């Protein structure tokens, strides 16, 4: 039994012209103690999925279907009070922009203490001690004297450490990390990723890591789910995603990273753009950009199906054995409008 079991999650945004789908029937599981990487480009629905798990979608967004099973309960059908008891205690979250995700008019100490004051009945003094210990644990140098400073007085890297401290201070079972290093410099990114891995082995929580950066995935994930246009198109252990790629979009994503070990004059670009969520292709959503698409791909709705015990793809041509794994690299095309 997985720690977190998400099935058929569907989230839409209400607009003047009707609802627009952001996540469309996403299903995945998170096992205890693992790092699941949820990877996709902007508009793929990866962040909306993450926010939907904790029901942090603000109007006009709305979760309209699916189940999020955790500890034998469906989080989507909990009463608001029961849901609040889960947030920050069993499942916590950190975000991309550490500055805007911290309250600018509260000291960092108060913000790290808050989850303890909400979820435990230890007094303020004890909460302060635990918050301070957590700040030291996430590598805030001289946390004692920084306890009463405000977020704007810290650097970006330290702010993200504060966010991690307040997310983990109640020792949750799951940490959802939404692009935690995207806004940071590369040397600081490496520090934060190392810190997350350290804390994971120490506290034993599972991490759902949302990112657009396959390098980050390659660095820390155990398993990967690839999202495109609101759907999960491939999920597999991390090594298999790179070595045994089973979806043309995942292959395109991997190929578009400049590879230092391979000197090519041209990068292998994916033609076209991410589809407009208001006008999605009827069948496979990647078909219009796919080098392997057949006419039937454009019209047939495709389902994420296991091709191995641990490996699932939504590409019907791979499922039918018509395409080899890993998906071969196509010769670069001329620039395309």
């Amino acid at each position, binding site marked *: 039994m997985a720690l977190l079991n998400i099935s058929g999650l569907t989230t839409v945004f*209400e*607009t*003047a012209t009707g609802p627009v789908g952001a996540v469309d029937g996403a299903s995945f599981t998170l096992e205890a103690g693992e790092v699941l990487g949820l990877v996709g480009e902007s508009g793929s629905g990866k962040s909306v999925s993450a926010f939907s798990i904790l029901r942090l979608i603000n*109007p*006009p967004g709305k979760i309209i279907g699916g189940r999020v099973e955790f500890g034998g309960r469906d989080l989507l059908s909990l009463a608001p009070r029961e849901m609040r008891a889960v947030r920050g205690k069993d499942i916590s979250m950190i975000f991309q922009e550490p500055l805007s995700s911290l309250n600018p008019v509260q000291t960092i100490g108060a913000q790290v203490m808050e989850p303890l004051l909400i979820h435990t009945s230890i007094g303020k003094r004890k909460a302060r001690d635990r918050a301070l210990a957590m700040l030291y644990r996430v590598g805030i140098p001289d946390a004692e004297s920084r306890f009463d400073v405000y977020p704007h007085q810290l650097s970006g890297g330290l702010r993200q450490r504060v966010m991690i401290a307040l997310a983990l201070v109640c020792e949750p079972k799951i940490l959802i990390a939404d692009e935690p290093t995207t806004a940071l410099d590369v040397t600081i990114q490496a520090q934060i990723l190392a810190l997350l891995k350290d804390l994971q082995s120490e506290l034993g929580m599972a991490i759902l890591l949302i990112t657009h950066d396959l390098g980050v995935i390659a660095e820390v994930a155990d398993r990967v789910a690839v999202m495109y246009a609101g759907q999960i198109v491939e999920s597999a252990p991390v090594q298999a995603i790179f070595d045994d790629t089973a979806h043309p979009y995942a292959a395109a994503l991997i190929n578009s990273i400049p590879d230092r070990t391979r000197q090519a004059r041209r990068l292998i670009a994916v033609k076209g753009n991410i589809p407009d969520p208001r006008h999605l292709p009827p069948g496979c959503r990647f078909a219009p950009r796919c080098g392997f698409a057949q006419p039937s791909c454009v019209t047939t709705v495709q389902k994420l199906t296991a091709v191995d015990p641990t490996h699932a793809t939504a590409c019907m041509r791979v499922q039918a054995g018509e395409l080899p794994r890993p998906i071969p690299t196509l010769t670069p095309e001329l620039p395309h409008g």
Partner: protein
Amino acid sequence: MKHSMFGKKLKMRLGGGIVIAVILMAIFAPLLAPHDPYDQDLMSRLIPPFWNAQGDWTYPLGTDNFGRDMLSRLIYGSRLSITVGVAAALLACTMGTILGMWAGYSGGYAETAIMRLADAQLAFPDILLAILIVAAVGGSALNLILVLGLSGWTVYARVMYNMTRSIRERPFVEAAVSHGARSAYIIRQHIFPQLIPVLTVVATLQVAQMILQETALSFLGLGLPPPTATWGNMLAEGRDRMWAAPWISNLSGVAIIILVWGINMLGNGLREHLDPNQRGRQ
């Protein structure tokens, strides 16, 4: 976003409808008014409006202390109220926009001088400045426009200053500089057009403010000299008879509130319509 019955569309329609109706009334005043607004008839003084028992359909909204027809005076009064309000707002707008853009674009001493002056004027209530000047030079339509315009420029200056400064830092302005554009071109092509929407909103709301200020000056006896028909004058005149003939002040008060409410609703609706935060989500 969910479509709402009570959103900005309703505000703009209601407000715009009222404003257009009053402007049409002002333009076609000679056709609409049943009597001459300055025609005194001491035989028919203080006749109440038609809904009152003593009412008389010859004077649907009654007459004032001098027997002048209230309806005609209200219709003609809209002309001066609107003219003074719009002209004063335009004067303040022109002055404030030029000074605010200058301060925001050039920085340096111009910035310090202009914005410090605007700050100082904060400590000097608009209405007080107007009272002092009108008390000294006397009330005429032109004086009122000048005084209200001169005291109202700081609102625009502050808004335009902040906007100009932020637009100046936007990359597309830097791009124009990198192509060799001169300051005059950048202001004309890239800065001023971005200011127009906000300018429209601020100016709309300020017309309402100016109309109210004109009535306040009239109330203090510093407005246009009698017998000129403005809504402010009528309201002030009615004050002395509010016990015996409440309709004089109440009718002109209702006229003011309807027009100013319409302008304000229109301005608020426009602001919500132009708010980039809200527009981006549509």
